[in-house]
């Protein structure tokens, strides 16, 4: 190192220059890629919602969404209504309900403000699906899901995802062997009370044959992620119970 680069003034100027250059570069990259990223996020949401109601291109073991270029079309074909529920039972239609940020709504609710609950109604082969987006905490970071139910709150399909769960352990919540277990699983107990779905390590039912036990088999080594998923299902889907009750009337 030459003496020139050791002086305090040079160091200070270099630091300032570096911050300006790197900051500008990152701001530029971020701003110029923003539209693409937003579009990708929108496509992903539509794909997730369709996936939960069984509109996907899965083969035996894979998780394959509807192709990016077809998703808009399929979304408007299968999703017949998008609702926003407020105050438990006040229902409004909103074609952009799928863009509602669940995290923001949760913060609103915590601060005592009104929380909007989006719900998507889809029809496939004459059957109606009610798809709710939910969000909770895993071990490291956020976990979220799209759960498709019928009018009796029996799960018809689910898509789970996470931000940073451990690869090979908690991250397996987005694998087929875990997600498929939720299909046909009941959210209500035998007497019609909402209990959610527990992620159980001890139910002795690894093949998940009993669909009415409100339990699915846990992933080994992913206890906290599993607990987080169960807690999310319990607290978030519970909010939809009043709406499902109105369907019965």
């Amino acid at each position, binding site marked *: 190192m030459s003496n020139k680069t050791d002086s305090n003034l040079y160091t200070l100027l270099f630091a300032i220059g570096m911050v300006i250059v790197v900051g500008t570069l990152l701001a530029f990259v971020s701003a110029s890629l923003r539209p693409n990223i937003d579009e990708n996020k929108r496509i992903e949401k539509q794909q997730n919602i369709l996936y939960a109601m069984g509109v996907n291109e899965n083969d035996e073991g894979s998780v394959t969404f509807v192709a990016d270029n077809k998703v808009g079309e399929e979304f408007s074909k299968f999703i017949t209504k998008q609702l926003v529920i407020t105050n438990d039972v006040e229902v409004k239609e909103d074609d952009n309900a799928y863009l509602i940020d669940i995290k923001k709504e949760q913060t609103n609710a915590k601060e005592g403000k009104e929380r909007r609950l989006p719900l998507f109604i889809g029809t496939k082969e004459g059957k109606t699906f009610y798809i709710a987006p939910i969000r909770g905490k895993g071990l490291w970071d956020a976990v979220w899901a799209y759960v498709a139910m019928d009018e009796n709150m029996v799960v018809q399909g689910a898509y789970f995802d996470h*931000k940073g769960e451990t690869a090979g352990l908690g991250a397996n919540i987005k694998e087929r062997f875990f997600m498929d277990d939720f299909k046909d699983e009941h959210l209500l107990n035998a007497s019609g009370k909402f209990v959610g779905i527990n992620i159980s390590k001890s139910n002795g039912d690894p093949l998940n044959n009993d669909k009415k036990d409100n339990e699915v088999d846990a992933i080994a080594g992913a206890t906290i992620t599993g607990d987080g998923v169960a807690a999310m299902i319990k607290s978030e889907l519970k909010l939809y119970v009043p709406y499902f009750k109105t369907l019965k009337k």
Partner: protein
Amino acid sequence: MGLLSKKDRKLILDPLADDNPITIQVLGICSALAITAQLKASIVMTISVIFVLGLGNVVISLIRNIIPSKIRIIVQLTVVAALVIIVDQVLKAFSYQLSKELGAFIGLIITNCIIMGRFEAFALGNGPWKSFLDGIGNALGYGVILIIVGFFRELLGSGTLLGYKVLGDPITKTGVYAFGYENNGFMLLAPMALIVVGIIIWVQRSRNKALIED
């Protein structure tokens, strides 16, 4: 490899075996433990580190004569962080699925001590081409160990490789499970990764006695 001189070849090949960043220099252990429960994650991490270390070494090498020595670590950190963020944003915009797979590793790449180690030990004192080769070599050396560890952990821990059930189905008892074989859940936990790395170090030093320190 006619393109590379003997010295250049050494830069790439040395870190693969006799100067391996993980087993000899014992760097980058934390990420090696964290992400090797699956083979796929190991491979993805390897590719990301090859990219960031190769490019980062070149950038540091290009500006090596104007970096003030007092704040060189901060400058290096800024370079890695900026590179990683740019890679992350570009992936999010053009290859969204891949970026989701990588999501968990982005932070780990920034803190990977191999990267800072190579900047400090090599790129600050060598030209861009040499630094590039050194970066690629070290990233590959890191990746080789990651992939070996990932291979054994996924195979013995989950009975799968890249998600394929190579040993049969543990629940319906097909394949080797029909004979009473069980997956070793222990393999999925970080301590077993350390033991696998330990075994690799043992094998490597038994084969080449020159590597044994007193």
